[in-house]
């Protein structure tokens, strides 16, 4: 990608982030549960209420509040203070982020392994029973509710057949560091990341399969075959290389689905990440935390799709030199 188009892409991502934040601000102020409505029913005296409104800037006009809110975020990284935790929202989110990143990345890894592996199996012979079987499983994959899959996984693999723990990041009393600590985390990670990665891979599998089958129809594959290259090598080297650019985009698009899924999976597996933090915030009407979390995951998605475009350009010379 040339510098000009890269810059254009970056600017449009920034505009997108600004729109996102604006949507979030107006959501907060359009809702019946907004702070001033909560204050009105809080039983405080008018003077106390006015004091709180002044302290939080609620007595100012809406455009002024909007500019101050946006200014605090952009200039100071100040997203406000959580009602329930009484700590800066950003601090809470940053604390919870590593657990979510660990879960999402290992889920993504499994997602890619399963979808590329399945697609290679299916594309080997289009229309064979194996192809149909893989396609049926992928249809099941995106038709099952991920939270239900999680519950059933706990029921079968943690209760009836206790191979894995039922949740949490570590065993009670286990130390954080060392090899045994790592192994403990990995043991807790397997079930949630398999469910999260597996449940979302149906769509990716179909995309990769379609682009593999597309590639197998191209002249360069026919040429490779004529040269005597084996079927396995044609698939895994020649055709897969062709399917890679699409895959980079898919990863960018899979990010919202992963964030979605990690929310319910974290709730079910008591995983101490951003999803569970936000869910608890939603339950306790902790608006600063909810809105910052919503806005930041939107920003994350925009960033993800920007990076996916960069990766796409990097693996696809047609885009890179365009």
């Amino acid at each position, binding site marked *: 990608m040339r510098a000009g188009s890269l810059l254009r892409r970056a600017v*449009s991502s920034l*505009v*997108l982030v600004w*729109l*996102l934040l604006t*949507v979030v601000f107006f*959501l*907060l102020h359009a*809702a*019946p*549960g*907004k702070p001033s409505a909560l204050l009105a029913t809080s039983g405080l005296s008018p003077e106390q209420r006015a004091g709180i409104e002044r302290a939080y800037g609620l007595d100012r006009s809406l455009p002024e509040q909007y500019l101050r809110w946006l200014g605090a975020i952009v200039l100071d990284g100040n997203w406000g203070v959580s009602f329930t935790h009484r700590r800066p929202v950003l601090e809470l989110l940053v604390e919870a982020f590593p657990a979510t990143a660990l879960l999402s990345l290992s889920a993504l890894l499994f997602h890619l392994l399963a979808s590329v592996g399945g697609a290679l199996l299916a594309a080997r012979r289009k229309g064979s029973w194996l192809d149909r079987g893989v396609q049926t499983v992928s*249809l*099941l994959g*995106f*038709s*099952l*509710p*991920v*939270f*239900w899959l999680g*519950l*059933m996984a*706990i*029921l079968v693999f943690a*209760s009836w057949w206790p191979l894995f723990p039922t949740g949490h990041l570590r065993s009670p009393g286990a130390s954080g560091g060392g090899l045994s600590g790592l192994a403990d985390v990995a043991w807790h990670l397997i079930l949630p990341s398999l469910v999260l990665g597996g449940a979302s891979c149906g*769509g990716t599998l*179909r*995309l990769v399969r*379609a682009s593999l089958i597309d590639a197998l129809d191209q002249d360069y594959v026919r040429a490779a075959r004529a040269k005597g290259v084996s079927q396995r090598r044609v698939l895994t080297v020649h055709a897969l290389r062709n399917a890679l650019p699409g895959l980079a985009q898919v990863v960018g*698009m899979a990010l*919202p*689905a992963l*964030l*979605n899924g990690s*929310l*319910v999976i974290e*709730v*079910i597996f008591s995983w101490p990440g951003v999803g569970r933090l*936000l*869910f608890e915030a*939603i*339950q306790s*009407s902790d*608006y600063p935390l*909810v*809105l910052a*979390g*919503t806005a930041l*995951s*939107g*920003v994350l*998605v*925009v960033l993800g*799709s920007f990076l996916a475009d960069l990766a796409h350009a990097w693996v696809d010379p047609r885009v890179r030199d365009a």
Partner: protein
Amino acid sequence: MPERRASLWLGVVLVALLGLAGLLAPWLAPHPPDAQYDAAAAGHRPPGTSLTGLELADGRWVLGDQLERTAEGYRLRRLGELRTITTAELAPGGGPHRFLFPLGTDGVGRDLLSRLLHGARVSLALALLAVALAMTLGVLYGAIAATSKPWLDNLMMRLVDALLAFPPLLLMLTLAALFRPSSALLALVLGGTGWMEVSRLVRAQVKGVAARELITAARASGLSRWRILTRHLLPNSLTPVFALAPLWVANVILAESALSFLGLGIQPPDASWGTIINDGQEVLVQAWWIAAFPGLAIALAVIGWNLIGEALRELLDPRGGDGRRNMGDAHR
């Protein structure tokens, strides 16, 4: 393609069966969905449980595993104890009655099958309502954007991009938490977060049709912008939108179930499949059936709609393109 038609029909049959089950729930269900005959004795019973019960004079029921007739009345084995009930204690004409719970019971002795059948009504009706709403909003928004000045069109579509960047479940949860909608208003939340992709698709379609000669001809003959839009542009652009509707229904069923599972969707006393799974989560190990069966119901409904949607998409697009991808890329 015979295979495609077979999966279309399989989908239609699944959807029709579940739809009928929901429509006819009051007649099909063996019990009223909220009837708690004897919460202590009938709670958390596994699938296939059959109990015998007697109606007492005050209208309550006592349910037990075994019943024997004695000289003065009945002897009932209830919760491992023998309980004697004299004829005088019974409601008038209250003879023994057999209770069958094909899929088991929940914690307060309600019949799971009856709750699932009634839940089908809630889940399916809500999904159809939400998709109708999302399609109306999306068609209007997309058509307006496509026929507006380029700068306005651009701004409108960037707003769609911004809304699509939120993880949809988080957006719905936030809306549900802020507005605390009733069960019917939940359709607004579900539909209000689902129209963006419709509008992208409609806009791309309308733009495509607008470039064709029939529109130039219509413009040349002096038709108004509104008339061109309603008479020529929309009728020629909506087929792919309707073809995708079944896939959206499938997605909305999943979204509603997730919201309800998390306690922010359908509120009691109404019950959808998602809320029943929520009930079953706490007793997953003691009473697995409460969480397991509603999940299967959701899966069947979603598979049915997905099969219809995929078959329609391929039948209407003989090139066999991937509609999901086209949907996302439509505006680029």
